[in-house]
């Protein structure tokens, strides 16, 4: 197992091989093989193999500190933003390695979007500008009408349009927490990602907003592969097709204990530890 050099700088030139506003893009499959992660000398993940099939929702579950977020962040190269973070193994999007230079890192992150646990809209931007931020950030040109369409379609997909259609000019931070999180989802959708990673997207939200977001996940999963970290077992059952159970024994790196169709994981797990966890007996 060789560590990958991830110190290379971001390329400043953009290769815009996929047209952003083209709705014809397809969900992409992600494959992680033999992934290991370190923070400094501390190894926090080991031997992770996971297939995230196109158009499917994969849920990552497991007790706190077992490396779910870390794994998620390796999938779109956010892991390397932490100083001292290193990794080994391979992550492929539709069979192409994302770490070894075949795709510019900015393209990797645009094709594999991310929604964070804490809503993080850009406070200096309006609601509409927040939705379009991804275009601006990656220097993509678009016409006025394209932008208007994009704002409406993304906010609708995120289930926010009706609430904010009359306040598109308000600052992003004027929205409630749940609305902000849906704004962040809309913002991610605007750059037409092929994969969307979500790290406990509902953990700070009320049940209604949570349902709203789960509905959004089901709707977008036809065209976007979704990988979601959640501590909520019901949520995992409601939204995901497949489920991966992570666990870290004391002073050991985390690994995947069991992975398979959600139904099997919850009703008929092979491993007793999985059974204990999904039934709330530890973690």
């Amino acid at each position, binding site marked *: 197992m060789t560590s990958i050099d991830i110190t290379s700088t971001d390329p400043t030139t953009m290769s815009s091989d996929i047209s952003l506003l083209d709705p014809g893009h397809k969900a992409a499959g992600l494959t992680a093989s033999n992934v290991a992660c370190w923070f400094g000398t501390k190894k926090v993940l080991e031997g992770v193999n996971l297939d995230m099939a196109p158009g499917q929702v994969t849920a990552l579950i497991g007790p706190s500190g077992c490396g779910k977020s870390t794994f998620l962040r390796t999938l779109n190269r956010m892991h390397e933003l932490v100083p001292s973070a290193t990794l080994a193994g391979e992550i492929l999007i539709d069979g192409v390695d994302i770490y070894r230079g075949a795709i510019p890192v900015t393209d990797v992150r645009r094709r594999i979007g991310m929604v964070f646990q804490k809503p993080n809209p*850009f406070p200096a931007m309006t609601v509409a500008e927040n939705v379009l931020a991804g275009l601006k950030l990656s220097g993509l040109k678009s016409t006025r009408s394209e932008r208007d369409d994009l704002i409406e379609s993304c906010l609708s997909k995120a289930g926010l349009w009706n609430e904010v259609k009359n306040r598109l000019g308000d600052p992003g*931070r004027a929205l409630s927490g749940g609305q902000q999180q849906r704004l962040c989802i809309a913002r991610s959708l605007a750059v037409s990602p092929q994969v969307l990673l979500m790290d406990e997207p509902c953990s700070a939200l009320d049940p209604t907003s949570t349902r709203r977001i789960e509905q959004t996940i089901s709707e977008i999963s036809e065209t976007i592969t979704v990988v979601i970290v959640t501590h909520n077992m019901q949520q995992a059952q409601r939204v995901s097709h497949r489920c991966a159970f992570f666990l870290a024994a004391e002073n050991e790196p985390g690994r995947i204990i069991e992975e398979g169709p959600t139904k099997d994981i919850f009703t008929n797990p092979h491993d007793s530890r999985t059974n204990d966890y999904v039934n709330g007996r530890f973690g």
Partner: protein
Amino acid sequence: MKVPKSLQVDEIKESPSPPNDSEVRINPVVRRNRVDQVYRSIAAVSGSFVFLVMALIGGFLLFRGIDALRLSGWGFITESQWAPDMGGAFGIASLLPYTFSIAFVALFIAVPVSIATALFITEYAPRRIRRFLTATIDLLAAVPSLIYGLWGLFYLQPRIITLSKWLADNLGFVPFFKVNDDFGTSLGVFPSSTFVAGVIVSLMVIPICTSVMREVFGQAPPGEREGAMALGGTRWGVVRDVVLPFGQGGIIGGSMLGLGRALGETIAVTLIISPSFDAKWSIVEQGSNSIAALIALKFSESTETGISALMAAGLALFIITLLVNTAASSVVNRSRSGSATEI
């Protein structure tokens, strides 16, 4: 607690609020422990010490300058000449514009350079050399201004006047770069100008501006940064959409702190300029001035009235820099506590 009106009235009717013991409001007593008390008094004493010194300086300048101010009246603000010793008129009407011109030239150079440097340190430089760069910039602030002045006078000035000449030749239609020289522009009219002094002062201002901006840029919320990166943002995209909007207050505040420093810079300016008391638009032409330089130049050769007049000029400088710095720190503080608030 808000109670509907109807309810409130009912309640008051039903219970005519007996002077219940529990309704006597408490004045919370805080008993500080000894260590806390000691620190408190030390902090209070040193805090008031600063105010005391400021008041003493202001009071002293006023006390010593009041005679001259009485003598000149409003002329102190409207008069360009400075001849208090011969019983002539004196005022800061030409000194102020010169002082500010030098400072503005300095800021015009220092602010963009500082923004770029601060951004490079916080956003682009590899972690390893970040600390080294920061230390180097801070070291620039430690170089005595006399050294800057000497270096500026003997090394930089002979070189920079070529640029002055270029500005005059090519941009002479702009009043700032116009030179009144009947024989065409020869290099001889360019030394000792506002421009040269401003360039030197900018070197002294850059470390101050840079360190304020660097600190504020470094505090840009990591959540927003990551959000921008996760959308496929380039580094420049992150800088433009996250760091700069967040750092606005730092840019303004840092610039104003730099302005305060530039206005008061003395020895380097004194070395560079040749004093002029006719305010002019041109910054590249020979002859400039500043309150601080005037005081340094005239102090040893002044009579009693002359000294008093210099004290009054010092008072003006003191008040201006005090205002600028107060405004600057309030902007910096507001930006830190305000835009950094969590949702």
